[in-house]
C-alpha cells in the first residue's frame, strides 16, 4: 500500500497548493476581447496596481457576454463598448452608472486588391459596394459591441441583411482575433477596432480600406455592478478602479499606450 | 464439528447439471480424495463446500446431525493467484479478514512462512517465485488461516516431482495438525500415498465411496473402472466386482 499511499499524499499536497493563495484585494472586470487582445490591459493594470495596490482580473468576452456575466453577478465592473446595451444594463438596475472613458475607432479591412472597390472614407457606401459585389465579409456574430456596430452600419446603409445575405456573409460567432484570422485566411472584408488590428500579427493580404469616418467612433464606457442587486460586489475597490480610469493619471496612461508609435485609445472621460 | 453431510446437492451451469443430486457423508478426520474424469463436478463440489458457489438445490451441513456452524476453511487452487507484492504481503491477505489484532496477524503470517520454508524469501516479489514456491505461498496462506477444513484443487498438477513431494509433506503436516482435507487430484499415486478414503465422482453423482486401497484395486462401479482404466491403462481390473 505504501507506494499508493505516498503518491496520493503527494497529489493531495499538490492539490492544496493549487488553491488560490489568501485573497488580497482584487476585483473582477468583465471586458471585451478588443481591450484584452489589443494589449491595453497589459499596459493599464500594472499602473493601476502600483497606484492603488488593487489587483484587477479581466475576463475578456464579447460586450454582450460581458454584460451577461455582470448581470449574473460574476463581475464587479464592466468595461465595454456598446452604448445602447450599456444604458439598458443601467436602466434595468444591474449597474450603478455608466461613465464614458475613452474611444477608439473601427476600420474596415479587406484584401489589398479591394475587389469590391470599397476603399474610401464612407462606411455605408463601402458596405453597399461589398454587398453588391457579394465579396466575402466576415462578421463577428457574437453579440459583441463590434457586432452591434456592424449591424447598425448595415441598417444605416439601407441594406436588409436578412434579405441579401448568402454565402459571402460569414458569421463566425467568435472574438475579434478569430474574425481577423478568418478574414486573413479567406481574404475577406471585416469590420474591426483599430486597436486589435494594430496588435494583430497574422495579416496576410489584408490592409485598412475604410477609416476616418465619424460614424466609426467606438465609445467605451465603464459601469459598477449595482451592489443592491448583487451584495457581494466589491463596491469600494470597483469604484476606485473607475475613478482612476477617468482621473487625469488614468486618462494619461490610456493615451500613452501605443503600438508601433500609433496611439490606440483616446481618453474622453468627462472632466471632474 | 465435522463430518460433512451433503444431501441432494444440485448445481446447474449453462443448462447442464454439474452436480446432480450429490449425496455423501465425509469422515471427520484425515484426507478424503475426490477423483473422477474431467467435468465430473469435482472442482464445483469444492467451491460449493467453500461457499464460493451457491447450490441450486440440496444442503451442506457440518458436524454430528449437521447442527455445527460452518468450519473454518481454506482453499488451495491449482494455480495460485498472487498480487504484485512481496511474499509476506501475499500471505497476509489470508488473515486480513480475521478478527484478530495486527500483531497476531503478523505473528501468524511469520509462523506460516516459517512452516512452508519461505521465511527467508518473505520480502521477495511473489510473482517472481518458481511454480513450487508459489504453491508454498498458497499453503502458507492456508496455514495462516488455521482451517478445520482444507480444500485442495489439484494443488500439484503443474509442479515437477521434487516440488510435488514438498507440497505433499505440507499436506501431511496439515492433516497431522488436525485439519480435515479434501483433495481433488488426477495423480492416483498421490491419492494412494495421502488419502484414506476416496469419492469417485461421475457426471455429478457419487459413483463410489470407500477406502482408497479397495477402490484403486477393486473398483465396484462401472464408472470407477472406466476412469481408473483411463488413468492407469497398464493395470487390469477385469472380473472384479
Amino acid at each position, binding site marked *: *500500500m505504501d*507506494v*499508493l499511499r505516498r503518491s*496520493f499524499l503527494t*497529489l*493531495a499536497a*499538490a*492539490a492544496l*497548493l*493549487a*488553491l*488560490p493563495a489568501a485573497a488580497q484585494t482584487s476585483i*473582477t472586470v468583465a471586458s471585451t*476581447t478588443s481591450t*484584452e*487582445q489589443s494589449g491595453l*490591459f*497589459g499596459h493599464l493594470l500594472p499602473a493601476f496596481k502600483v497606484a492603488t495596490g488593487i489587483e484587477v*482580473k*479581466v*475576463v*475578456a468576452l464579447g460586450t454582450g457576454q460581458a454584460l451577461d456575466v455582470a448581470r*449574473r*453577478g*460574476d463581475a464587479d465592473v464592466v468595461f465595454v463598448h456598446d452604448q445602447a446595451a450599456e444604458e439598458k444594463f443601467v436602466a434595468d438596475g444591474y449597474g450603478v452608472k455608466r461613465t464614458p472613458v475613452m474611444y477608439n475607432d473601427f476600420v474596415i479591412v479587406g484584401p489589398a486588391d479591394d475587389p469590391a472597390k470599397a476603399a474610401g472614407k464612407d462606411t455605408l457606401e463601402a458596405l453597399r459596394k461589398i454587398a453588391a459585389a457579394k465579396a466575402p465579409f466576415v462578421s463577428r456574430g457574437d453579440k459583441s459591441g463590434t457586432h452591434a456596430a456592424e449591424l447598425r452600419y448595415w441598417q444605416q446603409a439601407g441594406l436588409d441583411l436578412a434579405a441579401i445575405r448568402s454565402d459571402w456573409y460569414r458569421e463566425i460567432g*467568435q*472574438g*475579434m*482575433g*478569430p474574425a*481577423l*484570422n478568418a478574414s*486573413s485566411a479567406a481574404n475577406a472584408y471585416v469590420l474591426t477596432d483599430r486597436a486589435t488590428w494594430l*496588435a*494583430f*500579427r*497574422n495579416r496576410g493580404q489584408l490592409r485598412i480600406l475604410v477609416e476616418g469616418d465619424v460614424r466609426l467612433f467606438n465609445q467605451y464606457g465603464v459601469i459598477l455592478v449595482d451592489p443592491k442587486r*448583487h451584495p*457581494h460586489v466589491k463596491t469600494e475597490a470597483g469604484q476606485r478602479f473607475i475613478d482612476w480610469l477617468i482621473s487625469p493619471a488614468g486618462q494619461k496612461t490610456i493615451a500613452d499606450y501605443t503600438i508601433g508609435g500609433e496611439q490606440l485609445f483616446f481618453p474622453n472621460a468627462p472632466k471632474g | 464439528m465435522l463430518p460433512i453431510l451433503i444431501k441432494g446437492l444440485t448445481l446447474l451451469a449453462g443448462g447442464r447439471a454439474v452436480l446432480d443430486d450429490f449425496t455423501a457423508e465425509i469422515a471427520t478426520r484425515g484426507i478424503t480424495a475426490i477423483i473422477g474424469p474431467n467435468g465430473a463436478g469435482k472442482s464445483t463440489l469444492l*467451491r460449493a463446500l*467453500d461457499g*464460493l458457489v451457491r447450490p441450486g438445490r440440496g444442503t451442506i451441513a457440518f458436524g454430528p446431525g449437521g447442527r455445527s456452524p460452518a468450519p473454518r476453511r*481454506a*482453499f488451495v*487452487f491449482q494455480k495460485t*493467484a498472487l*498480487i*504484485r*507484492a512481496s511474499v509476506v504481503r501475499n500471505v497476509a*491477505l*489470508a488473515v*486480513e*479478514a*480475521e478478527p484478530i489484532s495486527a500483531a497476531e496477524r503478523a505473528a501468524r503470517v511469520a509462523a506460516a512462512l516459517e512452516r512452508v520454508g519461505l521465511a527467508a524469501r518473505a520480502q521477495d*516479489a*511473489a*510473482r*517472481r517465485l518458481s511454480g513450487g514456491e508459489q504453491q508454498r505461498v498458497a499453503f502458507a*496462506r492456508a496455514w495462516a*488461516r488455521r482451517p478445520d477444513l482444507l480444500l485442495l484443487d489439484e494443488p500439484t498438477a503443474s509442479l515437477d516431482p521434487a516440488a510435488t513431494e514438498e507440497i505433499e509433506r505440507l499436506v501431511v503436516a496439515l492433516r497431522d495438525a488436525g485439519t480435515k482435507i479434501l483433495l481433488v487430484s488426477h495423480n492416483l499415486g498421490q491419492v494412494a500415498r495421502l488419502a484414506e478414503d476416496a469419492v469417485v465422482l461421475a457426471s455429478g453423482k457419487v459413483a463410489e465411496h470407500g477406502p482408497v486401497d479397495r477402490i484403486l484395486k477393486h473398483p465396484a462401479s462401472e464408472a470407477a473402472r472406466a476412469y481408473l482404466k483411463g488413468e492407469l491403462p497398464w493395470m487390469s481390473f477385469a472380473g472384479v466386482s
Partner: protein
Amino acid sequence: MSLRVSVAASAIGCAIGIPVGALVAIARFPGRAVVVVVLNALMGLPAVVVGLVVYLALSRSGPLGHLGLLFTPGAMIVAQTVLVTPLVAALTRQIVEDADGELGEQLRAMGLSTLQRARTLVFDVRFSLAVAVLAAFGRAIAEVGAVLVVGGNIAGHTRTMTTAISLETQKGDLPLALALGFVLLAIVIVVNAAAAALRSHAARRYG
C-alpha cells in the same frame, strides 16, 4: 498554472474515480450494467458542456454562487475534476474487472469482503492504473473549453497553457502560440515517459 490545476484535478479525480471504479468492477448490485454504460459514456463528456454546467453552478446567481469560486483556479479545478473523474472511474473499472477475473475467486476464498477485495485489486494493478491517472492528467492539461469558460482566462490568474495558446492564436501571433504548444507537448511527453519507466520497472520487480 496549467500544471497545478491539472495535477490537483487529476488527484481529486483519482481519489474519487479509483474507489468508485473499483467498487463498480467487483460489486454486484442491481443496475450495475447501467452504471457501467453511463461511466463509459461520461468518459467522452464534451469539455465545453462541463464548463457551461460548472459555470452556471458556480455563478453568483447559481446554487454554489456564495462560494465565490467563479473565475478562480478553484473553479477550474472543479471543472476539470468533473471532466476527469468519469474517465478515471471507467478505466479503473475495466482494469480492476480484468484483475478480478484472475484473482477474485481466490480472494473471496480467503474470506475478504468486497471492500477488502477492491483495495487488494487496486493495489495489485497500481502500475496499470498509472495509465488511467495519466489519461486523466492528459485530458486535464490539454483541455481548453472548460477552463476557459469557468476560469475566464485572466492573465496571471487563471490563464493556462491551453487558454494562452488559444489567446495567442486569436491575436494572430501564430509562432508564439505554436511555441507554447511545443512546451505543452514536452510536458506531456515527459510525464508519459516517466510513466513508461515506472511500468517497466514494476514489470521487472513484480512480474
